[in-house]
């Protein structure tokens, strides 16, 4: 796609935004009725697609610029190639972000004209001035960053990296700005003793933006986007590895897959805690949100989330396992016995400590910190070691145990109201369903993954990596990780949106349409899968168009010109 075509697409998106806004201002415009899906699901599909594209184009540049900087510093051309290839895909997907963004506004205005107008009016300066300016600025910087790649080399490389930093700065501000109205719909401004409608009338734009869930949502999305970008980079590498015919290409894409996975997993380690922070703020805003999420209508969505996160951790650790297999001399790597002991003890001890001293009580750290640091400190004095293979296998056992704890519900019922003894945990074991146990399970998954990366790092320093010789199954693991991460993003996006219950804007603006109920998990899963598949298809197409097609093929040696029609 040429620059003028991309520019045209972006222009259409902006026209859609403002044209749509003008359309919504027309009095008495009746909302359209989407066949098959209904209006709410139609908005959901387009919004989710837009967020997936936006998530990638905001997340990928963060590690692209880090990769470029690493390449510059280490003088390793692989980092620069990785950064450039991911940027190529980002540029294509940037157009898709603009297109789906425009479509989102159109669908929103056609289906919920009054509410959309109301929201735009409340955030007029954001929608009409700040966001378009940032969007144009980001478009300008992104294209400049991409098209100056080859020109700004050598002495000018630092300048190019600075441009990448600027791109990320604008991208992050764009994310923070658009999170304002989004989080406002979940936690609109409020004040004690004043009705929300009255308070809203006097609230400034900053009051509306800086609501309860704004900063937690910013943090959650920022980290989530990096995770997502890392896993999609892994997906790009997997596709290219599978399509490679030369050993050196396989070696490079094997390396790229490893780096993508490492970035994805590195950010993933923080994600459960960012999610916890967001949930904590939502519950703090209105305590009735908590049971709706964890015990009632959305409780099974969280069970599914637990299953997905568990699978993602299993897969990412399996990828490390497969990566270790291609390191020559890995059998020599050993680790202190304290590490597997801590792994095994962690879920139990942490559950007990967090039950007695619930977070954020600092006393909990007094017990947990020494325990977590024990392998590094006591390991120096206790000479007993075990093989890396044993440590990783114990780690897998504990990932399964962690998953089990995370998944075990208080009751096998969709809502607390339907709870009966035959479907409920025995009271003595109810602690398995409480937050201390869930937090300890999450932390066990994180701890095991960190230990596995430490072992991998030791294996790399003591042995030799044979790039390109990784088990072919690892490519399916990379694809699985990207697919699961996107699916989980869709699931949690649906949860965040559904938390508004039967309101467009929580407790402020009821949704009077017949669709303002909580859908079932099964129904949601169909649409989340469908959206993920569409997104995957577009991303796969973008990868093939930008990377596969651009690879120069070896030409057959030119012979003497042959006249047309000659036999």
């Amino acid at each position: 796609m040429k620059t003028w075509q991309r520019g045209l697409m972006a222009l259409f998106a902006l026209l859609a935004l403002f044209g749509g806004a003008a359309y919504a201002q027309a009095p008495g415009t009746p909302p359209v009725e989407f066949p098959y899906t209904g209006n709410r699901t139609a908005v959901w599909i387009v919004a989710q697609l837009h967020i997936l594209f936006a998530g990638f184009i905001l997340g990928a540049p963060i590690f692209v610029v880090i990769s470029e900087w690493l390449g510059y510093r280490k003088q390793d051309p692989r980092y620069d190639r990785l950064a450039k290839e991911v940027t190529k895909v980002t540029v294509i997907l940037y157009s898709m972000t603009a297109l789906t963004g425009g479509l989102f506004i159109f669908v929103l205005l056609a289906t919920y004209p009054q509410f959309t107008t109301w929201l735009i009016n409340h955030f007029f300066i954001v929608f009409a001035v700040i966001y378009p300016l940032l969007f144009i600025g980001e478009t300008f910087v992104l294209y400049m960053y991409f098209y100056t790649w080859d020109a700004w080399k050598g002495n000018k490389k630092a300048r190019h990296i600075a441009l990448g930093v600027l791109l990320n700065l604008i991208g992050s501000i764009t994310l923070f700005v658009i999170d304002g109205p989004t989080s406002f719909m979940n936690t609109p401004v409020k004040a004690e003793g004043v009705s929300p409608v009255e308070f809203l009338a006097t609230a400034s734009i900053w009051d509306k933006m800086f609501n309860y869930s704004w900063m937690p949502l910013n943090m959650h999305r920022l980290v989530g986007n990096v995770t997502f970008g890392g896993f999609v980079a892994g997906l790009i590498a997997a596709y290219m590895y599978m399509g490679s015919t030369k050993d050196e290409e396989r070696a490079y894409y094997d390396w790229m897959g490893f780096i993508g996975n490492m970035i994805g997993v590195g950010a993933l380690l923080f994600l459960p805690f960012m999610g916890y922070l967001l949930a904590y703020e939502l519950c703090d805003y209105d305590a009735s949100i908590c049971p709706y999420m964890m015990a009632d209508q959305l409780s099974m969505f969280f069970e599914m989330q637990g299953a997905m996160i568990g699978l993602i951790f299993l897969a990412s650790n399996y990828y490390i396992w497969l990566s270790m297999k291609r390191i020559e001399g890995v059998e020599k790597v050993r680790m202190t016995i304290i590490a597997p002991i801590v792994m095994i003890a962690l879920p139990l001890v942490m559950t007990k400590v967090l039950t007695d001293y619930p977070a954020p009580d600092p006393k909990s750290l007094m017990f947990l910190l020494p325990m977590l640091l024990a392998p590094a400190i006591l390991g120096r004095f206790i000479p007993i070691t075990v093989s890396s293979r044993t440590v990783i296998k114990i780690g897998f056992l504990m990932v399964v145990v962690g998953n089990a704890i995370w998944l075990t519900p208080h009751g096998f019922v969709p809502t607390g109201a339907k709870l009966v003894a035959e479907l409920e945990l025995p009271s003595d074991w109810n602690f398995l369903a409480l937050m201390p146990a869930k937090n300890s399970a999450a932390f066990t998954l994180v701890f095991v993954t960190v230990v596995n990366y430490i072992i991998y790092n030791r294996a790399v320093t003591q042995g030799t990596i044979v790039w390109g010789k990784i088990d072919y199954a690892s490519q399916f693991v990379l694809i699985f990780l990207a697919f699961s991460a996107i699916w989980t993003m869709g699931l949690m996006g649906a949860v965040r949106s559904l938390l508004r219950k039967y309101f467009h804007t929580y407790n402020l603006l009821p949704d009077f349409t017949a669709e303002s109920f909580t859908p079932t998990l099964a129904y949601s899963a169909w649409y989340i899968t469908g959206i993920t598949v569409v997104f995957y298809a577009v991303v796969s197409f973008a990868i093939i168009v930008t990377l596969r097609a651009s690879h120069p093929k070896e030409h057959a040696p030119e012979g003497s010109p042959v006249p047309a029609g000659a036999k």
Partner: protein
Amino acid sequence: MGKAIIKIIVGLVIGVGLYVGTMALDFPPVFRWLFFGYAVLGTVVFLILDAPTMKVMSGGKALVSLLVFYAILCTVFISGAALWPQYDPEDEKGKIVKILKGKPNILDPWKADEVIARTKELDLKAKELTERIKALGTVQGVAGQDAGAAAAPVAAGASGGDVLKIGEEQWQLQECYNCHKLNGEGGKKRGPELDNIGTLLSQEEIAKKILDPKSYKAEGFDAEYDKGKMPDKYKDLMDLKDVQALAAWLATFKNTSVNTPKPIKMK
């Protein structure tokens, strides 16, 4: 192959052990199977860990394997989600209609569609009434007086019971049971058990607490009070008559055998 069989046997032994162990600990059957499922998951993980290396694929074979892999992922995720207990939206739909009934829509204060429909309806009724009045002639005045006299006591008699019924309905609609235990049902210790609240607070005081959660603090619930766990939203979401009805219904609970914490007046 031998190693794989040993792993399967070990996995089965652990699974059966977990099943029997949870049975001995009085876990319901669904949880026993869940724990058995965890053992199966663990077995699968350990089988995959030592599985033989996959052969390199290329061209059409790689593409087909990729498409099959995606099809498996989609099927597993969709069916996996369907396996969990499903919430019935019909349970919620009725509640939402009741909660939103009569609430003003600030996006459409004039309710243009409703006004037009109502005008047409009233037009029809007016025509019907005009015809009936014509048919009744002079007798209609006397009949009207009789009907009014008969209707009054029925309405008055029904209102007491209706208020309590509305109060109980509000308890369900506002999902108060999520935090408060009553009649042995609901509550997750977020808020006090309310079976004896009628002895400790009057109807007016309960209504005050609902409208302004900071007005009273339940003894022993200091942390919850300080954090503002009881939402300060019911004054905006509920009609005053519904709050009064809920308070009237709660005031009927005077079960002294239940230790409802003592409310402390704060405002």
